[in-house]
């Protein structure tokens, strides 16, 4: 049936469009739960994208590319952590400079890759199951990172709310003075949370250059890192809602492809601006209900911590 094929195609593009948002956002959620606002997601993402692409091109193995992307994100996040946590610089300004630096680094490293075809991360076809009509390719024929994204959300939800580690992370984000008084190393917990966020952002970038497309395009993150940051607000810092948000935004993002394919006479620029406008609308709607928005906001988010001896 033709219409089923269309629906299937839409769902498949939806998944590829949403996965990078989900991965980047879940990492930032952990960092923010620990009280650190890292506005460098966009920068870590684009460096992840170029590192993943370069490593894959060198080795021919996209899985090594994935590792390189994660590593790049972690390295940049350590730089961010050193400034904001060890030197207590302003988190907003430092995050911004990380994004500026990342966009520059990626453009510089990637300038020789423009137009070079890369190696695409293959879809994993789970034998038999992926042959099931309609739902087979959707549920069992994705690339590994799609499964990883769901696993990450489940893992983060479990660890944050069901384990002692999660309790410590949340305590550090909620009240760093008390957490410090209880003997937890606020700085160390925050470093680890920021590094987790960096790894996720790098991985999300790698997804863009290895699975979403297999090309390197300058500025290919196109604000997805910022949208991931907005998603964290949208989710009110709850991993489950992140899933909903990422797929909602993925849907807005792919709308233009399908509307244009359908031949509607709407300027492409207008369609391209929809995800950004949607982000604004969502931020307004979410922030409007302050009681709800505030209950889950980590109380120490963005605040520097200097342990007194």
């Amino acid at each position, binding site marked *: 049936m033709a219409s089923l094929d269309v629906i299937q195609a839409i769902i498949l593009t939806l998944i590829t469009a949403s996965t990078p948002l989900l991965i980047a956002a879940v990492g930032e959620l952990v960092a923010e739960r620990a009280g650190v606002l890292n506005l460098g997601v966009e920068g870590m993402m684009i460096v992840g994208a170029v590192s993943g692409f370069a490593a894959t091109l060198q080795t021919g193995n996209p899985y090594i590319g994935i590792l390189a992307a994660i590593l790049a994100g972690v390295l940049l996040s350590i730089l961010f952590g050193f400034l904001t946590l060890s*030197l207590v610089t302003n988190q907003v*300004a430092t995050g911004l400079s990380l994004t500026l630096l990342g966009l520059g*680094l990626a453009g510089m490293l990637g300038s020789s890759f423009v137009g070079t075809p890369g190696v695409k991360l293959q879809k994993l076809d789970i034998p038999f199951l992926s042959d099931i009509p309609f739902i087979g390719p959707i549920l069992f024929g994705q690339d590994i990172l799609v499964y990883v994204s769901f696993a990450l959300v489940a893992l983060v939800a479990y660890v944050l709310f069901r384990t002692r580690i999660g309790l410590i992370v949340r305590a550090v984000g909620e009240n760093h003075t008390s957490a410090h008084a209880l*003997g937890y190393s606020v700085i160390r917990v925050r470093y680890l949370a920021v590094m987790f966020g960096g790894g996720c952002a790098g991985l999300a970038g790698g997804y863009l250059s290895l699975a979403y497309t297999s090309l390197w395009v300058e500025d290919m993150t196109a604000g997805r890192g910022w949208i991931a940051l*907005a998603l964290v607000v949208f989710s009110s810092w709850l991993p489950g809602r992140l899933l909903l948000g990422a797929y909602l935004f993925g849907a807005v993002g792919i709308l233009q492809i399908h509307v244009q394919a359908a031949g509607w006479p709407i300027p492409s620029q207008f369609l391209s601006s929809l995800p950004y*406008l949607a982000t*604004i609308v969502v931020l307004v709607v979410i922030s409007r209900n302050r009681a709800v928005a505030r209950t889950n906001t980590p109380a120490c988010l963005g605040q520097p911590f200097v342990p007194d001896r």
Partner: protein
Amino acid sequence: MRLELEKRAQHSSLMTVISPLIAIVLTLLFGAILFSLLGINPGKALYLYFIDPLTELWSLEELVVKATPLILIACGLCICYLSNTWNIGAEGQFTVGAITGSILPVMFYDLEGPYILPLMILMGALGGMAYAAIPALLKNRFGANEILTSLMLVYVAGLALDWLVRGPWRDPDGYNFPESRLFSDSAVLPALADGRMHWGAVFAVVAVVVLGVLLAGTLKGFEIKVIGSAPRAGRFAGFSQKRMVLFAFCISGALAGIAGISEVAGSIGQLRPVISPGYGFTAIIVAFLGRLNPIGTLLAGLLLALSYLGGEAAQVSLGISDKTTRVFQGVLLFFVLACDTLILYRIKLVRNSVAQVVSGGTNGQS
């Protein structure tokens, strides 16, 4: 070993002055290492990047041309950041200012007369201001995060400009290039000398002086600093946080808008899909490097303009990507922020074992 910060009894005034200089030196060192890694003679590269553009008159003028938008935008951002308001969307306000300021020369292109330019500047300022007011109002009314909303609007403005110059505002005699009409003579900002330097530079200097006086010598300036550094005290003094957010966004938006229309009417002479090499973002670095002080932005603006010029020169003569400029800019902001720590804190390296004995808590394991 780990770092430990010890709060200084008072601001180190020495560090306030030299910390930006340390940051610049560190950035140059980083540049030298970067060029060595790229296999380029670092001495030669740094000379080409940062000294050579200063040796000729035309490039000195070009320096002023590039510094003009940076200084205009950064001045306004100083007001924002001092009052703890985070306008990150100056790039979008720049774009919208360029669009609204261009309405006259593009849509009413046969108009001539001395009133056109002042009107264009005014409309550019109003456009930038209105666009900046959106995140401010959304923050005041709904509590929406202004960092994210102002940033999203940057992408929207860029797409709107792209649509205009490819669609309704495309030059009918332009052989289908995505460009607007060339502005008529009465819609082009007059040059200040024989070269490309134009009246925008004067606007920048005026903005520096006006905002410098506002910050240093008026009650408003005091209010900005109190709300930024001690919001609670500001509330007791009866200063309204919400009015300040709107004020800061409007001032910085208007200046970004003026920068936008000055760039289009002064340097480019028409609208194009891309009118800025990231001035709105670079201005953030200018503001911080200039110590959030309008006069400081004058010097910082010239320095970052130099990074653009050097980047172009290096691209031509060394064959490296023009993105190197952005790397330099990002690293510079990193170092500026890191060196600022020295103003408030003394940094000590502490041996871990000692610290563990002292604190003795559960964090002493491992």
